[in-house]
């Protein structure tokens, strides 16, 4: 099983979730994050004092899927979350050793 972590623009969350859902991927977990990279931050001025905010609000979506679903998920996210502007975000894929469903105690792929 693989874990897919996608850091995307907050405004794209609903779309990505829906697109994944219509591709049969229903389980996911979302975290509010801030991040930086190529996208430059914005400058905020409070009473004349400038604060450059380098860390920009993003949303992290985590989906754990069986290996054969990885490509599909990545394609869906890449398509739906893309605007073409710097700051669209990254997807990280890593391996998961095991999964458990707390409610049933099931583990492995059937736990998903």
């Amino acid at each position, binding site marked *: 099983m693989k874990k897919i972590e996608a850091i995307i623009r907050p405004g794209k969350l609903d779309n990505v979730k829906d697109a994944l859902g219509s591709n049969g991927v229903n389980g996911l977990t979302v975290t509010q994050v801030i991040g930086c990279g190529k996208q430059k931050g914005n400058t905020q*001025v*409070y*009473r*004349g004092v400038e604060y450059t905010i380098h860390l920009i609000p993003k949303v992290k979506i985590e989906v754990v899927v069986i290996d054969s679903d990885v490509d599909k998920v990545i394609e869906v996210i890449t398509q739906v979350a893309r605007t073409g502007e710097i700051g669209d975000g990254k997807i990280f894929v890593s391996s998961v050793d095991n999964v458990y469903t707390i409610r049933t105690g099931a583990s492995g792929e059937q736990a998903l």
Partner: protein
Amino acid sequence: MDTGDTAFILVSSAMVLLMTPGLALFYGGMVRKKNVLGTFMHSWIAIGLISLQWILIGFTLAFGTDQHGLIGGLDWLGLNGVGMDPNADYAATIPAIVFMAFQMMFAVITPALISGSIAERMRFPAFILFMLLWATFVYDPVAHWVWGIGGFLRNMGALDFAGGNVVHISSGYSALVAALVLGKRKGLGKESMAPHHLPMTVLGAGLLWFGWFGFNAGSALGANGLAGMVFVNTNTAAAAAAIAWAFVERIHRGKTTMLGVASGAISGLVAITPACGFVTPLSSIFIGLVGGLVCYIAISVMKAKFGYDDALDAFGCHGIGGTWGALATGIFATKTINSAGADGLLYGNVSQLGIQATSVLVTVVFAVVATIVILKVIGLFTKLRVSEEQEANGLDLSLHGETAYSEFI
């Protein structure tokens, strides 16, 4: 006694009381999340302590029988003799106890204003001591000089309708001194110290504006035409200063901010405070516009240049705005608005501006010296500033053992 006047001053007193919790919000929204309650505390403990200080000793020091023009006598200690009948010396149509109550609210908010400059780093016991000493040795005498029968600035002819000297200049310059004595916040200029909750600040500004009608119009001590004029001047200057700040921000930085509009409004309210009972609404526009402008410059340019850490701009707003207001009174005052006042520069009386400048100078020098002395004396007994660790963890947790928001429930 007049029930209409009494009703007005009773309600005005309540409105001025509300300003201090309003100030807590105004200041509290501008600090970092970890210091909200510590910042609130400064205002709230002022309500508690100075309310008691005032009825026990403060009122009589400020308004008791004059002693050489410098201080009131102890005749009204513990409100002894302050009753339901009017005291014609100060307000012939309202009960003396109501006049006392109204003045109390001014005494309460003034030390709370100072807390803006020392936010996020002063120890709580030191702050309490400071407030009690400052109220007794700075506020009460200055109030006597300016407003007490026999007070020397009053006798000199200084005009201060609702507290330019007494409230804003005294607190503003003391705030600057306190900021300098305490030193800068750790990480200033390096870490982000952006306001944690601007809606809270804007709400506070709204309550302050509301309460300021009581503060200024109530200072007419009656529900009359003058009070009406003061009301309009107050609103006009606040509006003009808000617009001025918005405008200069737009020119200088490209964008108009909500914090700027709120800050501008407060600057205008400060600036009009001494003048509001002596000038016309059209003059108030000008006083407000300049008030917004000078405070903007003080806060956005001057502070950075000189490098003192007036955290929430108590000096930039009250010191600078109050000074402008006191001088503006000497320029724009006219007897057509208030025959008990005087004419200012614009109306041919050059000397009034001199008197105003003198009264500002006296107040500034006194406030600065007294604040230094008070802080040094307190420093002999207890530390003024929190430890580095306490500062890093925030006042809420390290001084008060609580946190403002619990995010995870």
